[in-house]
């Protein structure tokens, strides 16, 4: 069985984190992404590992500066939505998109419900979020909508960015008394004031009287996603494993990242609680005093 088939089979049928397969993936990525191989060699002196704890996670920063793809001929790339500086580029081809489709559906907690979205799906070739939501609509039905009023029905899933939700509730005139699920995508750092998902849910409930709220925690650099319902924490999956169960930067192994880098560290501060994690905030490196920070 080739590695792609093995990983897809694992994502579809696995149940526990498979460290042996994870190490096989790291070895494959180290051999086929020169930058990653050099990184591992420089930090550890090796590119062959026998335990995941021996492997340093790759800072997500490098998706902005390096071409991290195991194959020579990508067919495109997803770009992060960062507003300043370099943007992350995550290259893909048809095999890697197959992995993305497989893992995102398995991680998605609201299968078989029609999905309505305000997200611009025309960008599905460059925005991984648009690609994913488009795939959910193709799989479970639904559509892109222009307005929330009049287009939402009982049982729908409303999928939108946190900023879209925030903007809507700020200007909404009347409450919507429809039983729906609302999935927002986080990204609170774009807000003018500090926000967390609980504050956002509380505000949103003034308008969406009968909604159930969820947050999707995903990023361009991860082909699998975490979800958290209201009053619960973000759950890891066997194929999307958080390797450090404490407060600190997110360290995560994503099997769906087979063709780029699976084991990464993200400067998002999380806190592990009751078998899941709470997202605290993006570490903005804003405590730098008056020293000039290079980078």
């Amino acid at each position, binding site marked *: 069985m080739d590695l792609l088939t093995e990983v897809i089979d694992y994502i579809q049928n696995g149940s526990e984190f498979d460290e042996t397969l994870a190490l096989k993936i790291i070895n494959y990525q180290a051999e086929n992404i020169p*930058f990653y191989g*050099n*990184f591992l060699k*420089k*930090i550890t002196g090796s590119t062959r590992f026998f335990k995941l704890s021996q492997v*340093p*996670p*790759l*800072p997500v*920063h*490098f998706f902005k*500066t390096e071409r991290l793809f195991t194959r020579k001929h990508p067919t495109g790339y997803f770009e992060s939505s960062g507003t*300043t500086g*370099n943007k992350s580029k995550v290259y893909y081809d048809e095999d890697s998109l197959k992995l993305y489709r497989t893992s995102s559906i398995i991680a998605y907690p609201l299968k078989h419900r029609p999905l309505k979205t305000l997200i611009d799906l025309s960008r599905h070739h460059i925005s991984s979020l648009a690609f994913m939501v488009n795939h959910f609509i193709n799989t479970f039905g639904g559509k892109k909508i222009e307005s929330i009023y009049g287009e939402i029905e009982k049982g729908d899933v409303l999928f939108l960015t946190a900023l879209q939700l925030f903007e809507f509730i700020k200007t909404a005139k009347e409450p919507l008394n429809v039983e729906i699920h609302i999935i927002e995508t986080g990204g609170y750092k774009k807000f003018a004031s500090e926000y967390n998902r609980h504050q956002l849910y509380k505000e949103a409930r003034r308008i969406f009287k009968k909604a159930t709220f969820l947050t999707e925690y995903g990023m361009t650099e991860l082909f699998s996603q975490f979800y958290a319902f209201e009053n619960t924490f973000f759950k890891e999956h066997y194929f999307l494993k958080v390797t450090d169960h404490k407060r*600190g*930067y997110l360290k995560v192994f994503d099997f769906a990242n087979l063709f780029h880098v699976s084991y990464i*560290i993200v*400067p998002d*501060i999380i806190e592990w609680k009751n078998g899941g994690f709470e997202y605290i905030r993006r*570490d903005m*490196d*804003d*405590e*730098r*005093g*008056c*020293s*000039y*920070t*290079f*980078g």
Partner: protein
Amino acid sequence: MREDAVTRLDELKKALLDFIKEFDPERDADIHYGDFLKDLLIHTANNYEKLKKTLAGIPEVKYKSLYVFLPGNVPMVFFEVLPLSVIFNVKTFFKYPHNEKRLYDTFISYLSSKYPNYSDFFKGEYVNHLQAERKIKEYDFVFFFGSEKLIPLLKRTNKPFKFFGPGFSIGVAFTHVKEDLIKDVLYFDQNGCLSMKFLFYMNDNIKNDVANIFKKLSSTILPSSNFSQDRFRYNLLTASSFANLIFHNEHSAILEIEEERLNDSVPLPGRTLILKKIKKEEDVIAFLNGKITYLQAIATDSPSDIKILKNYASFVTEFGQLQYQPYNFFFKKGVTLKNIFKEDNHDYQMAEDI
């Protein structure tokens, strides 16, 4: 200059020295910076004394009030602005950083309790940038310390201002280094503009000597209580891709860069000294790749041999003395008591104008 400025400097010095005797980091500060803080505060109090002798001929200023944006994690700036307020008799409001309030409030209360004439002279609180922008309108002059991200706000205020920072400092080792160099690097977790970020060396033995100093002494200057180990590790992993790791432990590191020019798109970790071998002073300018304009100060084993770089720095000193700034250093090259209230141009442009 008025006699009362001398009296007020005397009061300030006495209050600070008395405060240091009673200072309890657990009780009196939000962040525990380390034992060296008291030592630096004593040095600063003694600088107040030296300042007294430099007041002749200093013009009075037309401004009656001052608004100060303090940087985070570098408490010395607050104590270095205090004498300026009293010399020029400008009532001062400090916009505290989000993570330190107690140290400043405690000292202001202490000063006011000893000398009631200060009870309405110094004030401070943490406010966000939006609130600060509104509050600034009530003041005549503004000092900005810290990040270039303040520049848009600074332009919008339409008040006369002085912008200090950001900056960094370097070491240049011709033949040897001293153990005290560890202070230059690790005080305030390298957050100050007087912290040494790079050590340029000419003698091969120096690399080993610096590594030995770090092995022996880096744990004697522990990180501040708000030091982020995750951020340190993350930035160290990132920097390791273009630099050689010479030494590291849980909270400090030495990296060496072989390239002739610094790749300044990669964040550098805190509490980390970057080594770079050079043959001549000009190599430093080439390596820093335009960032030389942010250079603040230089520590070296031979100050008299710094010929070219001294033109870029505010001062040159011996290893171990970077953080013990001269009494006549006012945060930026070219700034003196005579011109500190001369306003910067509102057309101030910086690279990161967002």
